[in-house]
């Protein structure tokens, strides 16, 4: 899908005093996509969202929406509406008046206004509570009011500031699908800010990961997870085993990294294009590490690599049973702790591994990611 670019952010910087909350960010968001701004708290993602809404003014750089420079456009004139983290539902107005507010300000005729309010409330399934006051609504219902209130204005972009953070676990799960359904139906471009990687991975078409005001990587959720480009990204998204090592062999077809922490060389089925002998980091996701009982001294064959590569022996130190899966912490001979995740495809009693067991750890030559920084 190559939709046209809707939002173009060019070298955007926002400083508060000496502190750059958003630091030279360039980004393009496409028409109709569900875009997530992801990052730890204080990374500048909310500031970026507020810059889009016009609630902050950039120190440097530009924002273009539909190729129109937003520099001189105040928040109330932008084709953008926002769902605030606190929802910001007006407490002194009924649900109906809250949703109608933006249309009233725009002087939409009463009859059309009425129809659009009903339509928006039906979209968020709140039409039965139209005459309630916000203090008679639950948190989830108030969020729906905020959503309807923003969507009723038919914006080009809907901004969502941590939309699920205030909801309890079950509701959050339901709201994820709900938001996806609503976006599907209205076709509006959604830009969501979240600190929760699961939320971003589950909902977004593409994610931008930010750290200390700087854009780290923009990619689809699976690319962000499978092909992170820095240690920060690799570590922030999901869980990963990181080994520092030296690039020994780097050919177009394969590469070998020697790691003192791991004790065995890591064989990769692709070239790295790094300087030979330079320091690199190899990341392997816990679920991509296979675990086999260690009966004899013959390691299992991983295939694709030379014998003696990508296999290491260790001892299970600790296991955390999480219902659907179990996380094992395995100590290697070098003292390094490696995490391996196993799906519990059998009952707990049938798991076959116990703390203290000796095991072989192995991984496919295609699984590790090599990070140069």
């Amino acid at each position: 899908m190559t939709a046209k670019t809707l939002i173009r952010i060019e070298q955007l910087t926002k400083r508060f005093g000496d502190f750059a909350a958003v630091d030279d960010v360039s980004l393009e968001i496409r028409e109709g996509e569900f875009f997530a701004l992801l990052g730890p708290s204080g990374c500048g993602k909310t500031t970026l969202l507020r810059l889009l809404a016009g609630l902050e003014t950039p120190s440097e750089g530009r924002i273009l929406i539909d190729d129109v420079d937003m520099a001189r456009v105040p928040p109330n004139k932008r084709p953008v509406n926002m769902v605030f983290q606190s929802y910001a539902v007006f407490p002194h107005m009924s649900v109906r008046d809250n949703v109608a507010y933006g249309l009233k300000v725009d002087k939409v005729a009463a009859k059309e206004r009425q129809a659009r309010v009903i339509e928006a409330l039906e979209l968020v399934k709140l039409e039965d509570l139209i005459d309630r006051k916000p203090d008679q609504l639950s948190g989830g219902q108030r969020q729906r009011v905020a959503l309807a209130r923003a969507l009723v204005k038919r914006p080009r972009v809907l901004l969502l500031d941590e939309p699920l953070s205030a909801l309890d676990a079950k509701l959050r799960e339901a709201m994820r699908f709900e938001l996806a359904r609503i976006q599907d139906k209205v076709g509006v471009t959604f830009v969501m800010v979240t600190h929760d990687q699961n939320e971003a991975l589950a909902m977004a078409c593409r994610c931008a990961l930010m750290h200390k005001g700087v854009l780290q990587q923009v990619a689809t959720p699976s690319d962000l997870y499978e092909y992170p480009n820095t240690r920060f990204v690799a570590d922030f998204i999901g869980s990963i085993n990181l080994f520092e090592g030296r690039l020994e062999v780097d050919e177009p077809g394969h590469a070998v990294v020697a790691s003192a922490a791991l004790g065995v060389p890591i064989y990769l089925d692709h070239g790295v294009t790094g300087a030979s002998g330079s320091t690199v980091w190899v990341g392997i996701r816990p679920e991509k590490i296979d675990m086999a009982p260690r009966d004899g001294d013959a390691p299992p064959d991983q295939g694709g690599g030379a014998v003696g590569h990508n296999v290491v022996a260790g001892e299970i130190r600790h296991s955390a049973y999480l219902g659907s899966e179990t996380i094992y912490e395995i100590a290697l001979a070098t003292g390094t702790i490696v995490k391996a995740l196993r799906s519990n495809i059998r009952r707990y009693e049938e798991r076959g591994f116990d703390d203290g067991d000796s095991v072989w750890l192995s991984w496919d030559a295609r699984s590790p990611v090599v990070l140069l920084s």
Partner: protein
Amino acid sequence: MRAREPKGPLDYARSTPLRLWVGLVLVFLYAPLACLVAFSFNESKRNIVWTGFTTDWYGKVFDDGDLITAFVNSLTIAALSTLVSLVLGAMVAVALWRFRFPFKPAFEGLVALPIVVPEICMGVSMLVFFSRILPWPTDLPWPLDLGSIVIAHISFSFPFVAIIVRARLASFNRELEEGAKDLGAGEFRAFFDVLVPHMRPALIAGALLAFTLSLDDFVITFFTAGPDTVTFPVKVYSMVRFSVTPEVNAASTLLMALTVVLTIIGLRIQGRDVAEMGNG
């Protein structure tokens, strides 16, 4: 039957000394007021012995042209000064809440000063000000002749409004205002649609306070009033100098009733607002 809980040290409803204490407080607070009201219905001209029930004194109050004039003056002054204090106080509160500017602490202190300056000092300074620096013309038509008193009343009323509103603003969620702007409202529209409704309970409380402060002010009014303008408290004072007649009682009772009714209305509205805004 359920066993009674042990008596706590501050359980004043169940401790005899504390009950006595509460009783004394109530007596000293309300007995004088009760006497005042009771003797306004007394037939005797003197406030000492009860001779019989009558409402004649109320009739006399309404026949007393000077007293009525003074009463109308007081209400007019109170209404005008409340209105201006409300706008001024709310604006000061918003400025202090929203903006940072040089000498803000000094400004904040200056605003609160009229609250702590003794009334007599305010009165004397107003007297000097209006006689030497800005002499208020004496022969203006009503209600312009009340101008100096209104200005004086505003100057000591609006700080109370500002402080009450400022406290209320502390609980305002800025995202509400941003939300209004995001939905298309301009600066003023967002202010009146979102911020003012939030301030409403404080505005009502402030107005109530400003109104009563103005209505019963004697000292400052005494010093700023021209020779021909008389307010209700000043008039009562001049009547009392000769003797406390039941007429004064009746007039005071009416004033009391008025303020009580206004307060009840104000608190009703405020209670409703607070209940509604509680879940912002």
